[in-house]
């Protein structure tokens, strides 16, 4: 351990000295540190891609492979033989998309109502809504599960879609957006033109809310796509598994081909990763939305 610590210490001292003495040194040291952290962040992804092109024996050998192998096709064949990954992909898509669509619908309706209509009890109802965000859901986890089994929703996607599809955070967030972006005059004008309240919402308001839909939708999509604990409790049949559950089955099954498992991990990660790299700004603002707006 000592060699390693001494080496780290020397590197740190060198970086500080460079930052102090040369004019561009500060910049250089910062780039080295930021680059090193970026390297650490990227290594697991890189190794995942590398390992999905190697055979199990190659993965278990020492030293570990750090460059791409030639067994991608073989792993692909093994993966398809071992697990039904297209089905898991489909299951994940069904759950995630229907959940996200419902969340966007109910939350935008709720947020719009709180922002635009001055109905009796609005303040009290909104205070209740805010208070519900403070309640830790862990307290109800066991009765929640029992309810699902009494409803006959074990092994049913409904259990993962319905309970959370009108969530307090989404409504709160949509209300903020509506207050800042929906002009009262627009609603008034539409009313004078004889639109019904439903038409106003779906024809006039919903298009204005598109940016908000994108952010909230990304947040919900990512969370549900990667969720593990709830599907683990609810979906107990192999053909209903989502991608994370399928990966878990491969881990606990001792006979699994390791290369195939790595490839399956890649398949679970890649779609969102590509989407993220294409629209990283949207993702970052969506996934951190709760913190920044007070």
């Amino acid at each position: 351990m000592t060699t390693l610590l001494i080496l780290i210490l020397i590197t740190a001292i060198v970086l500080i000295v460079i930052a102090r003495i040369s004019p561009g040194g500060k910049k250089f040291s910062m780039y080295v540190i930021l680059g090193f952290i970026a390297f650490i962040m990227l290594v697991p992804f890189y190794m995942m891609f590398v390992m999905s092109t190697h055979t199990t024996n190659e993965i278990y050998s020492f030293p570990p492979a750090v460059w791409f192998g030639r067994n991608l096709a073989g792993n692909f064949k093994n993966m398809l033989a071992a697990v039904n990954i297209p089905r898991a992909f489909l299951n994940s898509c069904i759950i995630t998309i229907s959940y996200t669509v419902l969340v966007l619908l109910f939350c935008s309706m709720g947020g719009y109502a709180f922002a635009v209509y001055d109905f009796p009890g609005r303040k009290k109802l909104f205070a209740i809504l805010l208070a519900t965000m403070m309640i830790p859901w862990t307290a109800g986890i066991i009765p929640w599960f029992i309810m699902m089994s009494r409803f006959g929703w074990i092994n049913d996607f409904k259990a993962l879609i319905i309970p959370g599809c009108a969530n307090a955070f989404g409504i709160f967030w949509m209300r903020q957006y509506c207050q800042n972006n929906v002009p009262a005059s627009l609603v008034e004008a539409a009313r004078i033109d004889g639109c019904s309240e439903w038409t106003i919402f779906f024809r006039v308001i919903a298009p204005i809310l598109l940016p908000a839909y994108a952010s909230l939708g990304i947040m919900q999509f990512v969370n549900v796509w990667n969720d593990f604990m709830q599907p683990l409790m609810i979906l107990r049949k192999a053909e209903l598994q989502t991608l994370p559950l399928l990966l878990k089955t491969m881990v606990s099954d001792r006979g699994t081909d390791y290369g195939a498992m790595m490839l399956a991990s890649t398949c679970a990660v890649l779609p969102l990763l590509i989407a993220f790299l294409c629209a990283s700004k949207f993702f970052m603002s969506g996934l951190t939305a709760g913190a920044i707006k007070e």
Partner: protein
Amino acid sequence: MAKVKTVRTKNNLWSEMKRYKVAYAYIAPFYILFVIFGIFPIAAGFYISFFRWDGLSGMHFIGLENYLNLFQDILFWKALGNTLIIGITAHIPILLGGLALAYVLNSKIVKGENIFKTIYFMPMVTSSVAITIIFQNLFGNNYGLINYLLSFFGEEAVNWLGGNGSLIKVAVIVMFAWKWIGWNMVIYLAGMQGISNDIYEAAKIDGAGHIRVLFNISIPLLKPIIVFTVIQSSIGMFNLFTEPFILTNSSWTGGQNNGGLTLMMYLLNKAPQGGTAYGYASAVAYVITMMIIVISLAVYRITGEKETAKRGENK
């Protein structure tokens, strides 16, 4: 006269409510779902925690026995200890590192801010299960990349995931910090960008260095955001489950000597995943909830008091 008035306001209220029936229809889904899937389970959980119940046959009222058994169970204390060690240790690099990275990227010393931001944020969009599978490999004893890199420095191979189990926590901490540092950094960065540049300029003119600006300007102004992330982190800590679960081959025991057993794993293993001790599991859930509430209140109190103290100082 007064009577007539009340009747009239009642009528008014009713007609007002009728007029806004669309608004009620819009907000109804949330309240209906919240009563069914929110309030009811939480209340029922408290009730069930006083019973012995296997979920099928009759319930036996046993008073506080579940709670008493819980506090006498060595495994519970072990799970609590592991959860706290992992959660607290991991959050030192997550919070401080996130703050430092945000400060560096915000100070415009380096270019390519967006590239670094994107790379640091990547773990947030990836499935925890997939990531854990990769880390399980990287931490492998005879074949892992980490031991391979250590061997360059003359280190012996470390048995991270086996041995006496104490190093499993290190692996979970590394993984957890790796995953969450970018999320915190992006939040802090957004907060820092909301701070007016004039303040920084003024500090610079006064001759304040970067470290002093960070501690005396950025951190105090970011306090609400930092409090938010700390509370989110403590809730996340108690819900820690997926990473240690997959890392120990989903064995429910948390690996060798229960080194990776967390509270959430302990809870789910009592019911519904391992056993059917629904009453006992409800008691565990309530104890976890109480700890979350106490920590959140403590964080608010500590930070809130500091704020009033500072205000007093300024006067």
